[in-house]
């Protein structure tokens, strides 16, 4: 059952195991060395608990305290996400984004840059769009968090989700959940009459703003789409914002326009 160069020291192998070693080209001395290491590793796994207690026993008291303190940075937080309260014990360092993705399996929110530069992690906290990658989960106690998973009502998509589908507001889709959460919050900002840097006047801003394309682009600048689906994204947002069907606006440049652009 084993290959010819089996040494007396080699543990009993099944045919499958021997085949794997043959396939790896491990014969003779190298095979024995490999098996020796494997068994050492298995041993250390088996005896890890007693080994680690021995290490702790030998180390200085200060080091042990530091190690335990690191574990004590646990924070208990009840996250209210999409109208469901999720109690969590987390490391104080955990961002809201990591809590959503790694602990609550809400993987709709995406980690793009992790530094607040791309907007893929945008969620809505207490009605405002924010970056979950720069928000510590520990700071979200008692706050209402809406992620892209919480926008639809049952099988009924949120109008913004439907508009993104209709207008092809994406290619790879990685930025899409951030784009959608961001634009959903933008609709409220327009209703509340919030100004932007490109607003004409800041002293008198009416409620229920009608956003121009330039305004939508400025206000969505925190959501980067590296596929460059911006035209379709703006179209989708405009359709929801105005309630009127939008058709693609672009057309090929004329020869005269090309010449003017090149001069």
């Amino acid at each position, binding site marked *: 059952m084993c290959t010819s160069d089996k040494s007396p020291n080699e543990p009993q192998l099944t045919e499958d195991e021997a085949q794997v070693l043959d396939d790896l080209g491990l014969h003779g001395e190298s095979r024995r060395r490999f098996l020796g290491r494997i068994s050492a590793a298995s041993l250390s796994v088996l005896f890890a608990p007693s080994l680690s207690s021995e290490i702790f026993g030998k180390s200085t008291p200060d080091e042990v305290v530091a190690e335990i303190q690191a574990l004590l940075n646990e924070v208990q937080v009840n996250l209210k996400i999409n109208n469901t309260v999720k109690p969590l014990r987390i490391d104080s360092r955990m961002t809201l984004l990591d809590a959503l993705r790694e602990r609550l399996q809400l993987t709709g929110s995406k980690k793009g840059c992790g530094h*607040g530069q791309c907007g893929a992690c945008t969620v809505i906290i207490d009605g*405002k769009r*924010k*970056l979950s990658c*720069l928000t510590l989960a520990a700071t979200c106690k008692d706050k209402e968090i809406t992620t892209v998973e919480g926008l639809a009502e049952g099988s009924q998509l949120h109008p913004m989700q439907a508009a993104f589908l209709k207008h092809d507001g994406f290619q790879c889709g990685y930025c899409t959940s951030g784009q959608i959460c961001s634009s959903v919050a*933008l609709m409220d900002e327009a209703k509340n009459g919030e100004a*932007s*840097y490109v607003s004409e006047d*800041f002293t008198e801003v009416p409620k229920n703003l009608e956003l121009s394309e330039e305004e939508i*682009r400025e206000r969505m600048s925190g959501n980067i789409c590296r596929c460059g689906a911006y035209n379709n994204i703006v179209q989708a947002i405009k359709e929801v914002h105005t309630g009127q069907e939008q058709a693609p606006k672009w057309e090929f440049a004329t020869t005269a326009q090309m010449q003017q652009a090149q001069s």
Partner: protein
Amino acid sequence: MRPFTFIAPETIEAALSASASSEKAHYLGGGTNLIDLMKEDVERPSHLIEVADLAHQEITKTASGGYSLGAMKNNSDTANHPDIRKHYPLLTMAMLSAATAQIRNMATNGGNLLQRTRCPYFYETSMPCNKREPGSGCGALKGMNGNHAIFGWSESCVATNPSDMCVALAALEAKVQVRQPDGTERTIAFTDFHRLPGDRPEKDHTLKKGELITAIELPAPKFSDHYYYLKIRERSSYAFAMTSVAAGLELNNGMITDVALALGAVAHKPWKLIASEDFLRNKKPTSDNFTEAAEIAMRDAKPLKHNAYKIEMGKKAIVRSLTQAFERKA
């Protein structure tokens, strides 16, 4: 990110006393800069004391006819507060030019004043930086310094302050209200709040250990008809300024009766143009006078190897923003 103890005090007083728990305790506002810097291993606090949800969320009228901006209020709600838009549109415009809607929703007013430089040598821990690691040298002084200071820098640091809000606050002559760890209050003139690098570039501002910003006080409204915040950057949105100008004019009978002028992204602190302001007072708002004010502003500029462009750009930006401010309402 290195481990830290998270503290969520219920009151300002509790936050102040928590700050005494360690030399390396740090207040946490919106986190848009601090959490990022912790991920980059630039900031290494032992304790984070959350203050963003505490008191000082209001915008109120002051006894002197001005307004007080709560330090814990976020940038979006401050910029879009009806009274601020109406009386201090220069501040609104500057604040809305900054970052993105998401970041402005998170960032607090107090935190905006404390944001750290965007110098790439400060961010990159494998590079020397006296601000991050005193004594390690300045990578930018002889390195890539295209976006660095032309005023007030020293051999130990050529970094700039990245805030837009602070440029308008310097122009408007705001004041910063702080609580000391013992609970007493003190007020700092805005132009004294940030400091020049000198040989202590690790200190961005004049706050003492444990002090907490509680409010920003604005003087009685001015420049609400003629104002402009011009921000020049490498793309039209969501970028830090290469040069920015906050300009405000008060006009009467075709004369400039008062003027507010400050530059951003040119120094370690918002750069108030006092000599240019003095020149423009009681002059006519003509393009010749605006040009002369711009010349005066740039008189003492000391460019580095890659940022001499900021002198010409700064002059043009000053003239343009004054012109825009003048023409906003005829």
